[in-house]
């Protein structure tokens, strides 16, 4: 058995909805059925076969040999197996993902890991706005799993996150961790303005002291705690950090006092 490989025939003429090209769905289908899946989102009406050459038969391992910013919904709802994109993807990659592993070797668009509840998403490049966040109307964002962005994240990373961990390597836009319900967001590099705005609970770990915190956050000093060591150790073991970040006595702010005030922002002490 060899991986199912999708080779792009040409740059797609429209945004593509690739949400069905995941192991859980493909395992049920023959090659010709796969080629007939409708993936267009406009009047072009593209099907898989129009856009991709398809080969291979092991649905547990899905590879897109090239990427495109028009690939939306890659890895949607997957529960197991591996999906890899050798390039960039569009919106909502890893949306509602429950298990398995998804690797994006290029950049990802907005709403990556939207409402994900399990599994592991790694983006080698940058991620767009609202990483892990809910779509319009939904009440909670990411609910579990691990997301690693090696590059930068856009605005409002971890918006309304409820559980799980997001680690961003090279900084983020404004309002990181907005409205977090719980969970953990780690941003190395520089985070934009007012991280944690409207957060109820949860943990934001920053690589650099924030330039602008909302007045809803009040500094709680730098007592020695065990949790920072626990988190550091896990991040290093997972290959997310090269060396411990927070140490034993990180600086801490409690907030957002505008709401529940049970969240926190950590920076190395």
């Amino acid at each position, binding site marked *: 058995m060899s991986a199912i490989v999708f080779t792009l025939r040409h740059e797609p*003429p*429209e*945004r593509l909805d690739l949400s069905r090209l995941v192991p859980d769905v493909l395992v049920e289908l023959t090659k010709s059925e796969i080629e007939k899946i409708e993936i*267009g*989102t*406009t*009047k*072009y009406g593209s099907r898989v076969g129009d856009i991709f050459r398809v080969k291979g038969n092991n649905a547990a391992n899905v590879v897109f040999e090239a990427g495109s*910013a*028009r690939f*939306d919904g890659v890895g949607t709802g997957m529960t197991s197996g591996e999906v890899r994109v050798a390039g960039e993807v569009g*919106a909502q990659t890893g949306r509602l993902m429950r298990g398995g592993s998804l690797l994006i070797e290029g950049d990802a668009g*907005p*709403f990556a890991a939207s409402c994900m509840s399990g599994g592991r998403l790694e983006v080698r490049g940058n991620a767009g*706005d609202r990483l892990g966040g*809910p*779509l*319009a*109307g939904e*009440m909670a964002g990411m609910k579990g799993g691990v997301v690693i962005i090696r590059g930068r994240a856009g605005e409002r990373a971890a918006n309304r996150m409820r559980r799980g961990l997001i680690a961003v390597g090279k900084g983020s836009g404004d*309002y990181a961790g*907005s*409205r977090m319900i719980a969970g953990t967001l780690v941003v190395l590099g520089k985070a934009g303005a*007012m991280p944690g*705005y*409207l957060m109820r609970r949860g943990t934001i770990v920053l690589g650099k002291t924030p330039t602008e*915190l*909302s*007045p*809803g*956050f*009040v*500094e709680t000093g730098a007592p020695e705690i065990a949790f920072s060591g626990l988190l550091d150790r896990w991040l290093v073991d997972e290959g997310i950090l090269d060396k411990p970040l927070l140490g034993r006595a990180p600086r801490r702010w409690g907030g*957002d*006092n*505008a*709401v529940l*005030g049970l969240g926190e922002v950590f920076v190395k002490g």
Partner: protein
Amino acid sequence: MAVAWIGNREVTGEQAARRAAELLVASSCPVFSLNGDVHAWRAAIMLAERVGAAYDQLDGGVLARELALFTGKGAITVAPGEMRRRADCIVIVGELPAVSRGWMKELVASPPDLSGGGKRDVFRVGTGLGSGKEIAAGDGAAQTLAALRAQLSGRVSAVPVKNIEAFRKALEKAAYTAFVYSGAGLDELGIEMLQGVVADINKTKRAAMVLLPASDDAWGGALVSTWMTGFAPRTGFGRGMPEYDPWRFDVARMIADGEADLHLVMSAGKQALALPRKMNAIAIAHTDKPVTHAAVTIRIGAAGVDHEAVRYSSRTGTLVLVEAAKPSSHLSAMSAIRLIAEALPC
């Protein structure tokens, strides 16, 4: 007087509509930027459905921000008329749209007449109307609202809130407090923070928000869109059924990312439309010359001036009929859209 152009060539409305219909049929991903009265929106959304288009308010960013509170959180709101008659404490949060400043000035100056009446206390976050006590903490409205909400709930803020004691007293005394805001003056999270301030006060007292939309016509369009498709603008019919996605169907983004291949712009406004050179475009505009870079231009009159119109009024908080101030024979935006719809193959 010319009514329509194909390129720079004067044509009849019907000829222009036929050409526009051809372009719409040939287009794989048409996008609509809409600005107009309620009937114009109704017609445009029906056309969008027929041709598989995505639609958005013209410059729809602020509208999307105003809508996000209602899709993501909800609110406690009060009608503007009820605010006028009842609110004995008014807080103006952020900057107000120019169109609302006049009647808001009149409103804050008039006394409430219900619930015993009395005089109004006026506060502001930001410059507001220039009157009233300023509530401030930090650099912007989002910071101030965060600090204010923390303090009003008995929690601590990192920065003191200017005039907090005066505001506390006013709230305690007030029978009804109204917070007036606009999407033009507050960002999405600032609006949500304001919602939280109001929700907290309602645990023991009465208070509500009043949205003065940056554009009344945009809000009217949002109402129409919501009843016709179930969704606010930034909805697309590319797959036949309406899909709502404020990111994907942000028409400016779709054009910038090269996804759209035809742009229909409907604007009853007076300002000249600036269309990108490379984009195939249909302009339905209040103009007396062809719109630059438009393949088709159809001239329309102004709603409520050249023709009777139904529009959203932030002064009443609902739709109102506006009679034609100077009736003329100019097409309404709705009629222009319907001309195009009639030219479509069945």
